[in-house]
Every structure is written in structure tokens, then in C-alpha cells.
């Protein structure tokens, strides 16, 4: 489903060159729940950004669902992200000016979906995360756990095959964290392929497979 070969990421400034990722080779099968672990600054989020086509590698190849994406135009990449990928971020990244349901609808705005259909799909996604009673609320009126559930609803509303979660429980207490992980596990059981970045060993152990990074290098 997701294949990375010899991926390298270098950040260059006029005076310094930083190797963020070095020779990464990953193969995530369809329906797998994989976690990426490592200490802060080891390149976990950079790797997830590259898998999610939010950033381009300096070297190496990426295949999503069997298609190499190097030569994709910005427009094609946007379409691929829209159709195949769903993102969950540590700091939620909800748009405070939009209501919960409007936030959840965002991925559908970039498809040919009618307003009525968008509303129905967004309601369905919010029901899945148990927040159908908060549709008209605004992000500032929600707790951290609720915000992350909205973010999950937004990630799954377009029914993507792959969900990428960047420390989804990082800003939550452990009870709330477990609740979020439970939702992710349920989505995985329903067929979604999930890649989750975490530095929480206990969380990582609950996934199918663990990829460890250290200083930008894959150690397991």
C-alpha cells in the first residue's frame, strides 16, 4: 500500500546541511496498523509528511497503492491526498472560524460532492466518533479529546484507504489518549491502513508493527 525506497531528506540553508532522514525503506501492507517511534527530533514527523505527500524527499522513491508519485504534478498530488489519505495532527489543526461540521466537510469541498451529500457524509463521520451532538459547536467550545475526535471525523469523511496520524494522543491525557487509539483501532478493523507517529511505547505496542527511528535512520 505504501512503499518507500532509499528515501532521504536533507534540509539545506546557505550555511548548513541537515540530514533529517537517511536511507529509509518501508513497506506498509494494506490493512496494517503501523507505528513509527523514536525520540524527539529523530525525523518521525518528517517521515510521516513524506508518506503523506505533504513534503517531497530529497532522494528515493515513494509508491502509494502501487503508483510511484515522483513525477506527479501538484494537482495530481492534491487529488491523491484527497482521495487516498486522511490526516490526524497532534495539534488538531481545526479551523476555529468554522463549525465542527464545516471542519469535517473540508476534504469533500475538493470533490464533486453536492452540499447535501457533504452534510450527510460529515454527519455520518461525526456519528462514528461519537460527536453528532456537537455539529454546530465551534472548536473553541470543545475539549482536547473532542477536538481530536473532530479531526478524526475530518480524516475519515472522504473514506480514504490510508490514515496518517502524527502523535494523535500527544496533547491528551492517557484516558482520552486510549479513547482515541480505540477509535483508530476500530477504523483499522474496518479496513483502513494506518500509520501513526508516537513516542508513547505503550501506544505503539498496541499496533501491528513498529518502525523505530534514531537520528533520521531506521533502526528496526
Amino acid at each position, binding site marked *: 500500500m505504501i512503499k518507500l525506497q532509499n528515501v532521504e531528506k536533507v534540509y539545506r540553508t546557505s550555511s548548513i546541511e541537515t540530514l533529517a532522514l537517511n536511507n529509509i525503506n518501508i513497506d506498509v501492507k494494506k490493512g496494517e496498523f503501523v507505528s513509527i517511534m523514536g525520540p524527539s527530533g529523530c525525523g518521525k514527523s518528517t517521515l510521516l*509528511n513524506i508518506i503523506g505527500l505533504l*513534503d517531497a524527499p530529497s532522494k528515493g522513491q515513494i509508491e502509494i497503492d502501487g503508483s510511484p508519485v515522483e513525477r506527479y504534478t501538484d494537482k495530481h498530488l492534491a*487529488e491523491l491526498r484527497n482521495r487516498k489519505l486522511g490526516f490526524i495532527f497532534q495539534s488538531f489543526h481545526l*479551523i476555529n472560524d468554522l463549525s465542527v461540521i*464545516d471542519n469535517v466537510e*473540508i476534504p469533500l*469541498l*475538493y470533490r464533486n460532492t453536492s452540499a447535501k451529500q457533504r452534510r450527510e457524509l460529515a454527519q455520518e463521520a461525526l456519528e462514528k466518533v461519537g460527536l453528532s451532538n456537537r455539529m454546530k459547536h465551534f472548536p473553541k467550545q470543545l475539549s482536547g479529546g473532542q477536538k481530536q475526535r473532530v479531526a478524526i471525523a475530518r480524516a475519515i469523511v472522504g473514506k480514504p484507504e490510508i490514515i496518517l496520524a502524527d502523535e494523535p494522543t500527544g496533547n491528551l491525557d492517557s484516558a482520552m489518549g486510549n479513547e482515541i487509539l480505540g477509535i483508530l483501532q476500530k477504523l483499522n478493523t474496518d479496513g483502513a491502513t494506518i500509520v501513526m507517529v508516537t513516542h508513547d511505547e505503550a501506544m505503539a505496542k498496541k499496533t501491528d508493527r513498529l518502525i523505530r527511528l534514531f537520528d533520521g535512520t531506521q533502526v528496526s
Partner: protein
Amino acid sequence: MLTNYIKIAWKVLLRHPFYTFITLFGITLTLTVLMVVTSFLDHLFGAHYPEEKRSRSLYIATLIQTDSANTTMSSGPASFEFLKKYAKTLKTAERVSVMNNFGFSNAYVNGKRIKLNTKYTDVEFWSVTDFEFLEGKPYDETNIRNADHVAVITDALRDQYFGFDGESVVGKTIDIENINYRVIGVVKGSPPTRVYTYSDVYFPYTAPKSNYEEKGMRGRFVAIVLAKNPADLPAIQAEFDSHIARIPRSEYSDNNRFNVLIVKADTYFDHFLSMFTRSDKDRIALYAIVGLVLLMIMGLPAVNLVNVNVSRILERASEIGVRKAFGAPAKALLWQFIIENIFITFIGGAFALILTFAVIQFINASGWIAYADLTINLPVFLISILVCLVFGLLSGVLPAFRMSRLKIAEALKV
């Protein structure tokens, strides 16, 4: 999609009231200036009282004699005879009216002088124009034939000369430069900006001092040619050109000083432009200058708005990152920010429309232009909307482009 964009735009406006106030203040002020200018241009060139048929009228107002090298030139209005011979005979026209360019005279009331604008016209003048008769009627062919001392005056002159007490002044006598004229009609006056129809008093062209019998091509008269419908204008122009082309050189050469005669039947706007521009090249230059001035009026506040918008990109970075992450192509984001900007501009436009309405009411009431009738009519309104759109685009494209190009990973870090 559009609702989503507008919701965001509205929320962004509410987020920082002071910034919003500054932004809207700038937009409103700029658009008000442009809308008042538009309204004034419409006042000058649009079809308004008493020239409501301008869309199917042609003006013959200037006769130019020159040589092919353009070294000598003589220009000015034509003689009555010239217009009678070459304009009045137009077969493709519905009506042709001849009137003098302008004239001045004095009348005295209780020893106090009243300065008057005078106009000598034919009978067709009252058909080609749309004067509203408050009392009486216009002069007719019999008055012209008999060279009757009759006059049509404006309501303002009536009030000044006779004092308005509600009593009809038709049949009363007005003394102008020691000649007594019988008032046969009172019309609602018109603004002086409509130069070919504006006057305080109108006489038949056979009345004293009109000089309609002057010989030669040049004189003090102009003509308004009325077509049955606007589509006939080119045919009338072609017929008039052919009349002019048949004039033998001896008639305008003035002892071989000139070998080119230029007389055009132009629409009011073209005629106005031809006063400043002789050739197409001049006209393009004039359009370029006007365009540049308009661009400056809109451009400077737009640049300011661009700066404010660009400096606030970071505030929206997370939103841009999220939208891109979930599949928004750069083009969709570009449109989002342009639409938001146009939405804000239209809010400013709505305020500007209210302000423009107040300003033109003030101008109309101030008396700076007598009988001023500046309005926000449909053309002015449509042009105002177009101006809003252009301003919105002008100030929105660059910030939108910058925003749409933000790198996702970096935008999400903010």
C-alpha cells in the same frame, strides 16, 4: 464551497475589528471616489434631461479647415447656412435641429442686472430634446417665419425676472437688451454641463441678433441629428460624410490656405473626445492616460491592502496547510482568497454606495452645478459593481497567490 469561503471571510473580518475597520475604510473611500466620478461621467455623457435621446443623436459642432501638412488650422462652429445645406438635408435622419452654440445677454429687473445665457433654435429643437414645459408651449414655424419676438424661458429665469407667485407668465413681456419678447413657454431648466441645450432663454433663430444669415461656412451654430434608432447612426454618418465630401475645395480653401475640411457627425461622447484628440493615436494616448489615472486611484489603496493581506498570511497558515493536506489544489486556494477579497470589497462597495448616494445628494443640493441631476442609475450601479470586482481582484490576486504557494509541511508547523 462558496458558502464555506464566505463564512471564513466573514469570521476573518470579525476577528480583528480594528484591522477590518481600516481595511473597509480604505476600500469604501476608494470606491466612493470612483463611484462619484462614474456618476459625474454619467451626468456628462449619459442620456439625461433634456437630452434623453442621446443614444440616437449625433452632434455636428465643429468645423475644421486645415492643410494636409497640418501647419495651419481654423476651427469652430458652422454657420446656419452650412448646417441647413448639409445637415438639414440628411435623408437618413429622423429630425435635424440647428441651434447656436451659446450666447450671452442681459436683462434688468428693478435696475438689477440678470446675466443670461441665450440660445437661438429652430422648431425641431423641441422635438430633438425633451424639455418639460411647465407653462405654455414652444414656438412654431409661424413664429419662425414671422420672426416673432417670442421666447421660451426657464423656471429659474421666470422666478428671477417675474418673481414666482404661482401666476402664469405666458403672454407677459420680458425685456432683453432693449427688445421686448413675449414669453410663450416656461421650461424646467437644465444643467450647464449639457452645453448644446443649456440656456436661460430660447428664441426662434429668426429673432434679432441671431446672425443666422451670416455668409460663409463658419458661424455660431451647431446641429443635433436624431436617428430613428441607434442602429441608423452609421448610415447617417456615412450620408453626412458624403455631403461633406462633395463640397468643392474653393468653398473652404480661403484663398488656398486650406485644402482639408473636417466636419463630423459624432455621438456626444466621440464629439467630446474629438475636442481633445484629432487622431486615433491621440485617442489611444488619452485612453491610456485616463486608464493610468484610474489604475492609480485604485492601485495605490490596492497595494496598501495587498501589504496588509500579505502580512497576515501567517495567521491563516494552519488553515492553508489543512486545506492543502486534505486535497485543495493551489488553484482552489487561489480562488478562495480572491473570492474572500471580493466579498470584503463588496461589503466596502455597499458602504461606498451609501456614501456615494449621500455625496451626490450633497452635490445636487449644493448648487455648484445648476440643475445638477447626478444619480446612481443602472449603468452607474453596474459600473460600480465592475469597479468593485476589479478592485477586489487587484488587491486580492497577489496575497492569494502567495498564500496558495505556501509549503504544506511549513504551513502546518505554524
